[in-house]
């Protein structure tokens, strides 16, 4: 009987340790505690070029993450990229003339969307489109332009 009791206690400790480990992975290691997950409202933005922007990339405002990229699609009619952004519900006061840019964090970092607030007193609501956008800087294009300008200068 004493042996059964020891086994029960040890199995209980084992299962508790396993669950604690899972809890540690969920809370401390992954971002479960940080993201409400699926909550928030959706905004749309059209870009000429999104570069290598990925789904789930952060959407930031003043450097603070306020949402994530929900989906990226190609609009067949306008030949533009249609990006859906999920903004967390507490940030419900983005002005209607908010400006969306595709930025790169660092030289080799990931691309993300930075929002610049405008001055309007009307706010964007679920399903609205961010009107003003700026495409991703493509490094090859920049270098190409730079070389082109240099070549222009040297012939003058």
């Amino acid at each position, binding site marked *: 009987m004493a042996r*059964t009791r020891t*086994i*029960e206690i*040890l*199995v209980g*400790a*084992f*299962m508790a*340790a*396993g*669950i*604690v*480990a*899972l809890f*540690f*992975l*969920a809370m*401390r*290691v*992954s*971002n*479960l*505690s*940080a993201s409400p*997950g699926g909550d928030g409202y959706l905004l749309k933005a059209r870009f000429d070029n999104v570069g290598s922007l990925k789904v*789930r990339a952060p959407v930031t405002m003043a450097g603070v993450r306020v949402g994530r990229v929900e989906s990226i699609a190609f609009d067949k009619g306008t030949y533009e990229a249609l990006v859906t952004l999920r903004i967390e519900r507490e940030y419900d006061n983005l002005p209607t003339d908010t400006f969306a840019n595709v930025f790169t964090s660092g030289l080799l970092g990931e691309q993300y969307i930075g929002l610049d607030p405008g001055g309007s007193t009307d706010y964007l609501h679920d399903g609205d489109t961010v009107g003003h956008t700026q495409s991703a800087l493509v490094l090859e294009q920049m270098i190409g332009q730079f070389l082109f300008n240099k070549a222009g200068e040297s012939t003058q």
Partner: protein
Amino acid sequence: MLELLRQLGRSGLQSLANLGRGHILLAGILLGLPSLVARPQLLLAQIFNVGVLSVLIIAVSGLFVGMVLGLQGYYVLSQFGAAQSLGVMVAASLVRELGPVVTALLVAGRAGSALTAEVGLMKATEQLSGLEMMAVDPVKRILTPRFFGGLVSMPLLAAMFSAIGVMGGWFVGVGLLGVDEGAYWGQLQAKIDFEEDVVNGVIKSIVFGFVVAWIALFQGYEAIPTSEGVSRATTRTVVHSALAVLGLDFVLTALMFGD
């Protein structure tokens, strides 16, 4: 020529028959679940055998795997000036791959072989036939608790392995190599996703637990009831489990992270 073809055909038919018997046995094991619910004591004893007794080897391996990942990751990442991302590298490789896979390999070696030897010896000493004589179904009484013991233990052990490994990587990276503590945990939390990484790792380890327990019990139950037969069955358990785990890991990784 004809003899060669016959050999090929016979081995093909034999492996097909083995596969079929394996699935019939699995069905029998799963059908024993209701009677197991009525007697949870049996399951507890097996979780003790497979899980609790494996904790030490899992914890020590997890610690050292995490520490080695910390050292090697730091070496490569510091060349790109990205040593701050050490935590992401350690945690992603542990949670996604090494945790479930290494745990499954260790459990196959530590507990799977023991299950095979135990069941094989029960068969060799005719304890299984004895049970049947007493109208006790040996599959339900002996195999079902062992199967579910393995199935329950594996994800818990894998979670412990990953958690201890992350702490090992933290110990080496932050403690010895001087990576910033805030960067280690901050980058880790920003880049590791709960559903994408942690849940998929847990699903992997459940699948591995299922396969390892199934293979071990099947080999034990089908062992030739001699000492040589049991020893061969034990070897086959480890080899087949390792191959199945590594092969399945590729398939699961391709399905989960392939896009």
